[in-house]
């Protein structure tokens, strides 16, 4: 029963946060598709089907949060690199603030932090 709840809840939470997690991974430097997908996949509970990250990346591009360039690589096949844009940076910062506030509130209500949390 707990396992069922965990799956359903995680899916919902993931849906909202995943695109901003991608933006967060791009904050320091550009990354190519395979690299991004693997990083996300390695983080517990972030993706079920790695392939679905690509449509998400596509939407980030149409939204103007990332730009893409194909570059040939000596390591093998050409790679599509994703770079964070200014609007993307703003969106990431905004989400970061919002997430801190939101998770603090949820923590408090779940009794995970703070004194005087109502039960």
């Amino acid at each position, binding site marked *: 029963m707990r396992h069922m709840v965990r799956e359903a809840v995680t899916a919902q939470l993931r849906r909202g946060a995943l695109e901003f997690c991608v933006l967060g991974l791009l904050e320091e430097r550009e990354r190519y*598709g*395979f690299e991004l*997908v693997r990083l996300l*996949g390695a983080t517990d509970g972030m993706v*079920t*089907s*790695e*392939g*679905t990250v*690509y*449509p*998400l*990346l*596509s939407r980030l591009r149409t939204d103007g949060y990332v730009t893409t360039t194909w570059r040939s690589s000596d*390591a*093998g*096949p*050409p*790679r*599509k690199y994703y770079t964070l844009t200014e609007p993307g940076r703003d969106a990431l910062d905004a989400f970061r603030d919002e997430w801190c506030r939101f998770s603090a509130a949820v923590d408090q209500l779940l009794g995970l932090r703070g004194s005087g949390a109502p039960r």
Partner: protein
Amino acid sequence: MSTSTRHPLAEAYLAELARAAQRLPRRERAELVAELTAHIDEGLARATSEADVRNLLDALGPPQEIVAAAAPSPTPAPRSYGQTALILGVIAVVIGLLPLVGAVVAVPMGIAAIVIGVRERREGRRDGGSTAMATGGVAAGGIAIVVPLVFLLAALGAVIVGSDSSVVEEGPIIDVERAPEVEPELEVLPG
């Protein structure tokens, strides 16, 4: 472009992806296929065994799921429009069969069925749903108005025809009125 042959499992996956992606607009389809092909080729370059290849493809997930994520959000399933109008119209038709009272109730109900039905038809056509029920409601509403009115006209006609036969009934009354005229003659004779 890489000319080396891919692992047959990877080729099968890409073939399935190409099939599933048919439903996407051309540009989205091309983009998705290119990205996933590049991803798979990256993975294959690092794979050292068939197990690695299987893990690579399993981790990607089913092509159907990926295509579904890429497809634009589906519009809600088109519903059938005009259920209210149809029910109203049918009830109006049935009530309209009742004498006199039927017409009084059925005509407004029929009008309502038509109004609602027309509105539902318009909505249905705009949203791409089925308008059959709405059309049925309009038709039933029309019948519900016409049939009782026909009955009503027929009843009025019967009443009018009935008043002609009452003219015939007056005949004997006139004869009776003439009768007293005969009597004065009788009275004169004895005098």
